[in-house]
């Protein structure tokens, strides 16, 4: 009997001490972790606009350079105060996991200035090329169409029209998924931009 009491007591004390340690650590770091998550989104936007910053002044620079417009508190447009370029974060399902990135348009909301990928889990070397700089640079200057499909990612011999881009060799399914993500998110964000945009 005594040994069972001893075991119970031990478990309770051990649980109490470790929980206390964890709660204390959580209180210490919670704010910093939330700030870091914000900073990662902000650094993606600032990189897309080619604005230099460092980890100390990132929040201040973001305040002054970027105008954040929120539609119904969820969909957020990041507008550069100097150039009028507009960015939003797109998310969608790739072949293996979520593809999340930032796309930046000129103030006409049709010409692409930059695309960057924040997270993806595609096959390295094949579909994973979707996150590589040289591939995303082929999207610069593409003009989204006014009707669906807005952008076409294709394998073909002939030259591309203004709204067409080459697909990834060996990454056919990723290219198809990426096209679907870009088109769906563009349609949704364009409708909201027409309502709230400047």
């Amino acid at each position, binding site marked *: 009997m005594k040994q069972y009491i001893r075991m119970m007591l031990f478990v309770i004390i051990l649980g109490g001490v470790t929980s206390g340690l*964890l709660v204390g650590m959580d209180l210490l770091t919670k704010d910093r972790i939330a700030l870091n998550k914000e900073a990662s989104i902000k650094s993606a936007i600032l990189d897309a606009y080619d604005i230099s910053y460092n980890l100390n002044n990132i929040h201040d620079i973001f305040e002054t350079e970027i105008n954040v417009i929120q539609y119904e508190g969820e969909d957020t447009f990041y507008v550069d105060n100097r150039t009028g370029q507009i960015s939003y974060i797109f998310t969608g399902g790739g072949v293996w996991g979520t593809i999340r990135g930032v796309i930046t348009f000129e103030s006409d909301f049709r010409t692409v200035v930059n695309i960057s990928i924040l997270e993806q889990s595609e096959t390295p070397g094949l579909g994973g090329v979707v996150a590589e700089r040289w591939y995303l640079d082929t999207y610069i200057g593409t003009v989204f169409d006014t009707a669906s499909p807005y952008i076409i990612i294709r394998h073909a011999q002939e030259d591309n029209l203004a709204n067409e881009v080459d697909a990834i060799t060996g990454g056919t399914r990723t290219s198809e998924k990426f096209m679907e993500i870009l088109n769906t998110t563009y349609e949704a964000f364009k409708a909201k931009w027409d309502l709230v945009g400047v």
Partner: protein
Amino acid sequence: MKLIRLKYKKWFNILKDGISVNNPIVVTVLGICSSLAVSNKVENAIAMGLGVTFVVMASSAFISSLRKLIPGKLRMVTYMVVISTFVILVQMTLEAYFPIIAAQLGAYVGLIITNCIVMGRAEAYAVKNPVKYSLVDGFAAGMGYTFVLVVVSIIRESLAFGTILGFRVMPASFTNWSIMALAPGGFFVIALFIWGIREWLKFYESEA
């Protein structure tokens, strides 16, 4: 202290054995899962190795200090609770103060809880030995793990990406061996490495 006396010191022998004869990955083949996944880039390997070393040292020391109080039937439960606490502390620290490394290591910091090396050293050594030797043993196991991880990741990163720690080492005409960035490449390199080290140590499976 005179250098010649060093090889009779107990802590030196624990340290030496932990890296060579008792190397967790090569000899006891523990902790393979994370070593396959994290060893594709050298900086990830270094960060993971340091994380595991800290967790093994801290949990071994903690368990060793409690070894007289732990009831016999609750050993495994205690190890789990203590190890999980330390890993969550490490994870919170990384996310708060080193967010870039935390993003690159991703889920693998949390997986240190399942890393057999930590539990293995706790059960095999920490619960039977005083605190200072448990600390040295934990450090040795962690360093053995880090050593293997860094060597494997040097091979894999230079073949798969052509760089080491971001510095280009392969000539520009080299085609990347993408398989080295994926799991099969990890299996091949670690298997060859285990074979090589065991041959060098003359450590063969005994015919029973």
